[in-house]
């Protein structure tokens, strides 16, 4: 991590020196070398991110459970939030049997997202076991996303099922909004007895930003209420910071390709270092001048 920061800082130093000390007799800044560094740095970040995620599996993250009747689109929502097809989706009710878990990042926080079996009356023992697990998971979860098929009328059992869940941590997700909702969010809240409801289409990936924002808000509130969690949140932020650095480096690569001037390259390089600095706790601006002065002979 430190080494990564060090090489990047080295490039930024050259860029900055070429701006702030252009009157001095200094070696010229070579964009080609910066490009090489950026590419290497991205590879290093990718490696770090992998180990980071593996390590974090052990730690606790915010637990978000998806719950709901069969075939309402829970697995579709799960996939949509993950951004990849992890769970099997099919028009057959009772597709998901066991619980599925995956990490997602919402605004810098790590969440453990869980997909569960659809809740229904059943005689199948395996399915019943799955439903039991699902209910237990919802009980322990930090947040519950209760999915209903918004294009259908609300079944009686649904309200019952919802009443078992702590309203503080509950969000009703009215899925399949692309098919047209049968009722408004307000009506849904009233009929389902829930405080919050949001319309989404897991299929068309609509409304997911609102959903993420809701998760984020709830998470921040919890973290702020409790010092212990804050420590976890900071740790979870590291991965987010690495991703941020990676994005900045990608932009840097593009900018160099386009022949952008030094002050533009500097923005991207700084974004990257800033993100890394959030982890290492090192202030870039101080390190920057420090390095310029030790490396170059500057001044009257």
């Amino acid at each position, binding site marked *: 991590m430190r080494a990564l920061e060090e090489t990047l800082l080295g490039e930024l130093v050259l860029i*900055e020196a*070429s*701006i*702030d*000390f*252009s*009157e*001095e*007799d200094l070696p010229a800044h070579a964009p080609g070398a910066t490009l090489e560094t950026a590419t290497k740095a991205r590879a290093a970040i990718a490696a770090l991110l992998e180990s980071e995620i593996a390590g974090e599996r052990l730690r606790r993250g915010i637990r978000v459970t998806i719950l709901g009747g069969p075939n309402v689109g829970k697995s579709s929502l799960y996939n949509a939030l993950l951004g990849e097809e992890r769970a099997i989706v099919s028009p057959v009710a009772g597709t998901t049997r066991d619980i599925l878990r995956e990490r997602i990042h919402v605004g810098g926080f790590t969440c453990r997202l869980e997909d569960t079996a659809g809740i229904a009356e059943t005689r199948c023992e395996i399915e019943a076991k799955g439903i039991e697990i699902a209910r237990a998971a919802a009980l322990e979860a930090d947040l519950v996303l209760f999915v209903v098929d918004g294009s259908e009328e609300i079944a009686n059992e649904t309200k019952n099922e919802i009443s078992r869940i702590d309203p503080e941590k509950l969000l009703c997700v009215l899925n399949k909004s692309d098919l047209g909702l049968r009722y408004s969010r307000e009506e849904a809240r009233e009929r389902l007895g829930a405080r919050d409801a949001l319309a989404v289409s897991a299929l068309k990936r609509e409304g997911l930003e609102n959903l993420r924002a809701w998760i984020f808000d709830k998470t921040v509130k919890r973290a*702020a209420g409790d*010092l212990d969690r*804050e*420590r976890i*949140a*900071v740790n979870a*932020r590291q991965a987010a910071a690495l991703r941020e650095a990676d994005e900045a480096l990608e932009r840097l690569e593009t900018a160099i390709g*386009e*022949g*952008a*001037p*030094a*002050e*533009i390259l*500097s*923005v991207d390089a*700084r*974004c990257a270092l800033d993100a890394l600095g*959030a982890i290492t*706790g090192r*202030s870039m*601006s*101080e390190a*920057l*001048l420090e390095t310029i*002065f030790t490396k170059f*002979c*500057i*001044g*009257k």
Partner: protein
Amino acid sequence: MTIVEKPEFDIIVVGGGHAGCEAALAAGRMGFSTLLVTMSREHIARMPCNPAIGGLAKGQLVREVDALGGEMGLAIDETGIQFRMLNRAKGPAVWSPRAQADKNAYHRRMLHAIESADNIVLVEAEATAVLARNGMVEGIEAAGEKRYYAPKVILALGTFPNGLMHIGEESFPGGREGEPPSCRLADQIASLGIERGRLKTGTPARLARASVDFSRCEEQAGDKDPSPFSFRTGKIGGDQVPCHITYTNARTHEIIRRNLDRSPLYAGRIRGVGPRYCPSIEDKVVRFSDRERHQLFLEPEGRESAEIYINGLSTSLPRDVQEEMVRSIAGLGGAVIVRYGYAIEYDYYPPHQLLPTLESRRIGGLYFAGQVNGTSGYEEAAAQGLMAGINAGRSLAGRSPLILGRHEAYIGVLLDDLVTKEIDEPYRMFTSRAEHRLVLRQDNADERLFKHGVRCALLPRGLWEETIARRKRVARARRFIERHSLAAEECSRILASKGQGSVSSPLKASLLLQRPGISIKDIEGSLPAGSLGLEPREKEALEIGIKYDGYIRRQKKLAERMLQIEKVRIPPEFSYDIEALSAEARLKLEKFRPLTLAQASRLSGVRSSDLSILMIHLGKRARDERGSAGRGKIV
């Protein structure tokens, strides 16, 4: 002893350097009766070092001082003898104006501004004490007896507090060459409980112009079409005077090495810390021993001046060594030194003791500006003087202080750095200190700051109205070119003329302009005649706006995120006795006592985990207080 007369002023400024002059002028222009006390009117706004104003980052500062109604820009425009826009090869965000100054003319110009100003009384005297009672300033004492009273006092003492000069083995008290130091006042300020430290700086020798062989040096000319510093200057007049470039060589370095033991720096006689960005030649030779030569600029001290300043050869070696060293340099073989280089150590008052208005936290109404805050440079000093003057005035008038944000001005960066950073070497501005460099450009200082200058009554209202009209015209033109498409063949023709590949479908004019290497001149001919209708300056603004678009937005976003925590205020008496905070953070927070969470975030040693903890405790405190509202006052 009783003093009968009791002169009353609104604001007293001590020190007529670059900081003091701006402070006094701002105070006077805001309508306050102002007393400027300085040792000698002959030394008003003197430049003890480089005969130049502006330069990288400093040029931006001067533009900002001007856009707030300060004097520096106007003064250098009238008395500069060579103007250059630095960094032209790079993008406009980092262009910086710089000018060689005629030192005497500059001094006379500034003295005239002071003496012809309404509301300013200039008194030649040495201030010997700050009068304070119950933590509030009351005035000053001059020459150990005479008292002047005012509710606001601005100290702009430069390198004079306990100044100690060094040349070789000699050292002697002095404020700078030929001027006495200020020792009584320096010690008296410390006795008021204000912490001080020691810094050092130096200057090179001056040569007799007639003794330099310029034919052996490279010439460096000014810009053909010089741009002024001040938004209020029409055109720069007068011929441009050239500078010259030469280099040190192996022999020069050998002479220096041989005599290091006679250098006060290396013999350990200087305790103050010097700036790393402005090292003496001794330092350069020792620290960068692999360099075969160092670049030197030969700069005239004025249009008619017989003296040449050797930029790059700052030194405090003994006089005979200075001579030998100079004569080893190309073009300087027969050079005669008219004044020797020296180093100076002086007291400063670390600025963590100040509020962002530059007012002392310890003594109300007492302001510090310029070198006394540990900065270095005429421009940095002028900026602080101006802000101290403005804020002293606003406070007297019962108005809210003017505190510029880091995203708003280099001046904002400067003052914020002063109150959040450990100043352990003379502080100078660099563009890399500004997180929002693309927005803080020299070309748009008016757009950023005229409103404040006008609001403080330092500039006429009309200027701001013009700026708004200009901004509207640029915005209109921008909307036009963001909508107007150019045919594929047209785009390809323009791209081809710049040696770039063709396109197969029409492009919006703005997208074409975003391509590196394409400027507004290239596409203008392809737009309907008169569709832009802009003056050259406005066209430039349009182009910059489009070219930096995505990057400016990214920086603005960053600024907004910061603004959020900028709004979270930390009560002045807040207790940092919080176990979860790291020990280092606690120390720093207690020392600097930041006013906002954003300031706290900029203290070195305060990590994001510390900030989260602070945020939680601040939130808890606010809740507790809301709970008991009605009984206590909420800060």
